[in-house]
């Protein structure tokens, strides 16, 4: 069955099976057995799709068992939607098989590129925001949604550079992508803060300019603080520490605008003990409760 990808035909009301509007954490192999033993009360787990594009073994074993008990979000880090070249069809097929196997409530990818001429550079690289790149990104997202048979969420990037040729601001570019493809927005609040700081923009203004009615999930992560050659702050999206206070504040503001959203704590480097991750998730749930008590109540009590 081919799924129509014109904006109107994609079901924005979402399936009955969606991520709970609670906090989740990134699933790390070092926590597999502890999670199975304790069955923590969390909204969901998220995995990077590419880590599970292997034939068999413990990763699949544990993910399968954890999926039996928990909601799941699959987050791609290698599709290279912003690439000049065509999408890797074999990779897209592999993603489709992974989604068919684990039936996650959500699938997301990045507004970035990472593959060029068959070489995977393993970083989320920035692209200029022009009419040409807009058409290319939309074509790729149409292709992804078509092949996967579902709506995807696109994540706003953390960037360190801008391009002289850009004719759109990032929020306007993303708004247009969402309008043309019907995809949703994975709102990475840390990325909003990092990119705005790195490019001298007001994060609150950027946030408000994003297509917030399309948000289907939020990411929170820690960043490192460095400085550029002019001595201005240059924030690095390092995912290796606790979420910064300024990002918590921006998150609370975001929830005022979006209502409660499934919120992921991303912690990929220097992965802490489970209790530390859980404490970050609990903090996010406290913000969720404070901002959207009604939604929280329905979700949590139901």
């Amino acid at each position, binding site marked *: 069955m081919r799924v129509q990808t014109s904006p109107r035909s994609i079901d924005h009301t979402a399936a009955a099976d969606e991520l709970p509007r609670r906090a989740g954490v990134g699933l790390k192999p*070092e926590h597999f057995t502890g999670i199975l033993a304790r069955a923590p009360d969390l909204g969901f787990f998220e995995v*990077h799709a*590419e880590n599970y594009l292997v034939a068999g073994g*413990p990763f699949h074993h544990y993910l399968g068992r954890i999926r039996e008990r928990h909601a799941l979000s699959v987050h791609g880090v290698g599709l290279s939607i912003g690439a000049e070249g065509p999408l890797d069809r074999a990779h897209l097929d592999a993603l489709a098989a992974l989604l068919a196997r684990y039936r996650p409530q959500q699938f997301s990818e990045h507004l970035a590129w990472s593959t060029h001429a068959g070489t995977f550079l393993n970083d989320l690289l920035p692209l200029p925001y022009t009419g040409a790149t807009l058409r290319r990104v939309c074509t790729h997202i149409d292709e992804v949604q078509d092949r996967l048979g579902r709506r995807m969420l696109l994540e706003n990037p*953390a960037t360190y550079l801008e391009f002289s040729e850009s004719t759109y601001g990032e929020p306007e570019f993303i708004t247009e992508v969402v309008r043309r493809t019907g995809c949703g927005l994975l709102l990475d609040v840390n990325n909003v803060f990092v990119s705005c700081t790195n490019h001298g923009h007001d994060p609150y203004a950027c946030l408000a300019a994003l297509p917030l009615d399309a948000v289907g999930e939020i990411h929170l992560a820690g960043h*490192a603080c460095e400085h550029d050659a002019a001595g201005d702050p*240059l924030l690095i999206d390092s*995912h*290796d520490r606790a979420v910064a206070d300024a990002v918590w504040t921006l998150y609370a503001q975001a929830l005022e605008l979006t209502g409660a959203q499934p919120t992921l704590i991303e912690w*990929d480097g220097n992965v802490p003990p489970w209790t530390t991750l859980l404490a970050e998730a609990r903090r996010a749930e406290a913000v969720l409760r404070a901002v959207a008590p009604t939604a929280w109540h329905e979700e949590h009590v139901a």
Partner: protein
Amino acid sequence: MNRTSTTAALALALGAALATATLPAAAGEEAANEKCFGVAMKGKNDCKAGAGTSCAATSTRDYQGNAWKYVPAGTCEQMPSPTSPTGFGQLAAFEEKQG
């Protein structure tokens, strides 16, 4: 081995192997030559940025210019070596080898 002896040897060996290998292992028994560990395997695809903005990035290809300055210096240094009382790792000095 001719065919008959191969057949006989296989039958004998397989029979004996089955008899020994299926014996229930005593609790905690591990074959002396086996190293079996639940080695931690990480998911290698992640979203993290490398810490620091300059360390690995700005180093250029000095190996090509024979100006490589690194010498193996881990546990190989402590490895017994019949040719050197100081062990394996310390024999390395790329500049010396390059003359």
